[in-house]
C-alpha cells in the first residue's frame, strides 16, 4: 500500500468518524443537567486540546531528531506539526471561550490552564513567524529545531509558575466545578468517538501537509542540482 492510499483511507475514516461524532454529540448524548446545551462544546474542546498538545510535542521530537540525524524529513515533519497544532490550538481556545461565556460569565479569565495554553499559543505563533521570515535562510531548519526544543523545555516551568500565580491571586470565577462528571456511559462513549474523530482528522491533515512539504523539499534539491549541472555545463564550454 502506498502513501496516497493510506492518506485517502485516513481521509474517509475521518469523514465517517466525524459524522458519527456529530450525530452522537447533537442527537445521542444527553446534555449535562446543570450546564445544558453549552456543555456539548466539551466534546469538541477536549479532543482539540489533545491533538494540539500532541502536535507541539511532535514539533520538539522532530527537532531533536533533526539536530541528531540532519535529515530534511524531520524538519518537514516539525513544520507540518507546528502548523496543524496551531490550527487546533486556536480552535480549542475559541471553543473554550464560547463555552466560558454562558458558564463562567466571561469570554476569558486568567485561570492557570487558560494562561498556560495562551502562552503556548504565543510561543508557536512565534515559531511559525520565524519559519515565515527565515524561509530563504538555509539554516532555517536548525533554527526551528532549536526553538521547538526550547519551547517544550519551557512548558513545565510555565505550568508551575502560572499555577503558583493563580493560587496566590484568587480566580475571578465564583463557581468552577471540578471535573465534568461523566456519569452517563453515553457521555464516555461520545467523548471517545470524538477523540478518535479529531485524532484521525489531525493525522490526515498532518499527513497532507507533510507530503506537501516533502515534495517542496525534494523539488528544491532538484532545482539546486539542475542549477549546478547547468553551471558546470556552461563552464565546460
Amino acid at each position, binding site marked *: 500500500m502506498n502513501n496516497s492510499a493510506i492518506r485517502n483511507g485516513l481521509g474517509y475514516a475521518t469523514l465517517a468518524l466525524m459524522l458519527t461524532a456529530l450525530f452522537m454529540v447533537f442527537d445521542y448524548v444527553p446534555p449535562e443537567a446543570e450546564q445544558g446545551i453549552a456543555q456539548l462544546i466539551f466534546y469538541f474542546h477536549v479532543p482539540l486540546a489533545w491533538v494540539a498538545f500532541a502536535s507541539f510535542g511532535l514539533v520538539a521530537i522532530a527537532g531533536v531528531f533533526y*539536530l541528531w540525524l540532519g535529515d530534511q524529513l524531520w524538519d518537514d515533519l516539525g513544520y507540518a506539526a507546528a502548523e496543524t497544532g496551531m490550527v487546533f490550538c486556536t480552535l480549542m481556545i475559541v471553543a473554550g471561550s464560547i463555552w466560558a461565556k454562558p458558564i463562567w460569565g466571561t469570554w476569558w479569565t486568567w485561570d492557570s490552564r487558560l494562561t498556560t495554553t495562551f*502562552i503556548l499559543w*504565543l*510561543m508557536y*505563533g*512565534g*515559531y511559525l*513567524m*520565524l519559519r515565515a*521570515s*527565515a524561509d*530563504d*535562510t*538555509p*539554516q*532555517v531548519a*536548525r*533554527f526551528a*529545531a*532549536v*526553538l521547538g*526544543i*526550547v*519551547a517544550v*523545555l*519551557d512548558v513545565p*516551568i*510555565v505550568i*508551575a*509558575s*502560572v499555577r*503558583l*500565580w493563580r493560587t*496566590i491571586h484568587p480566580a475571578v470565577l465564583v463557581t468552577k466545578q471540578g471535573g465534568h462528571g461523566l456519569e452517563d456511559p453515553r457521555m464516555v462513549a461520545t467523548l471517545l468517538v470524538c477523540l478518535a474523530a479529531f485524532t484521525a482528522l489531525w493525522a490526515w491533515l498532518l499527513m497532507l501537509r507533510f507530503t506537501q512539504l516533502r515534495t517542496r523539499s525534494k523539488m528544491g534539491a532538484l532545482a539546486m542540482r539542475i542549477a549546478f549541472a547547468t553551471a558546470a555545463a556552461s563552464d565546460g564550454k
Partner: protein
Amino acid sequence: MSGFAAVLRKDLRLELRSGESTLALLALSMLVLVVLVFALDAARVRSVDAAAGALWVAMVFAGMLGANRALLAERANGAIRGLLLSPLDPATLYAAKLAAALIFMAIAEVGAVILMVLFFNLEFDASIARLAPILALGAIGFSALATLLSAITGRTRGGDMLLPILVVPIFVPALIAGVKASAAALAGMPLSSMGDWLKIMIAFDVLFVTAGYLLFEHVVGED
C-alpha cells in the same frame, strides 16, 4: 577558559571605548520607567506592585535591546566567521557572549533600580538590597534565552522585530516569578518568604543556560 576570557575582554573593551550598549540600555530603561509613571499615574499613588512591574518591563525592553546588539557587531564585518574559524568552541563563545550581556544588563538594572526608587517615591533601604538576588536571577535567565535566540533572529529578515516575539512568551514564567518576588521584596518581606518564586527562577536559569550552552553550536554556524 582563556578563549572565554579573550572574547569577554574584547567585548568589554569595545564597550568601554564606545559605551554604546550600556548608554542605550540605560536610556531605554529610563524612558520605559517614565512612560509607565505616566501610564499608571504612579506619581500620586505609592505602589510597590506598580514599581516592581515597571522595573521588570524596563528590564525586558533593555535586555532585548542588549541582546539584539550582542551579535550585531560580530556580523557587521563578518567578524563572526573569524570567531568560528578560531579554535574556540561554540559553547565557550556562547558563555562569553552571555557573560558580556549579563554585565551590560546588570549596569542597566542598577540604573533602573535607582530611577525606580526616585520615580515611585520609595526609600533606599534594606528592601532594595533584597532586590539584588531577584534581579540577578532574572537577568541570567533573560540573557541566556536572548543570547541563544538572537543568534537565530540576527540572521533572518526583520530579525530585531522577531526577537521579542520569540523571547517574551518563553520568558513568561521567570517574569511572573520575578515581578511577584520583587513586589514582595519592596513590600519589606524577607527572601525566605518567596522561596517558591526563587525556585522557579533558579529552575528557569539552570534550564536555559544549559540549553543555550548545548544548542548554540546549532544556530551560530555559517554553512
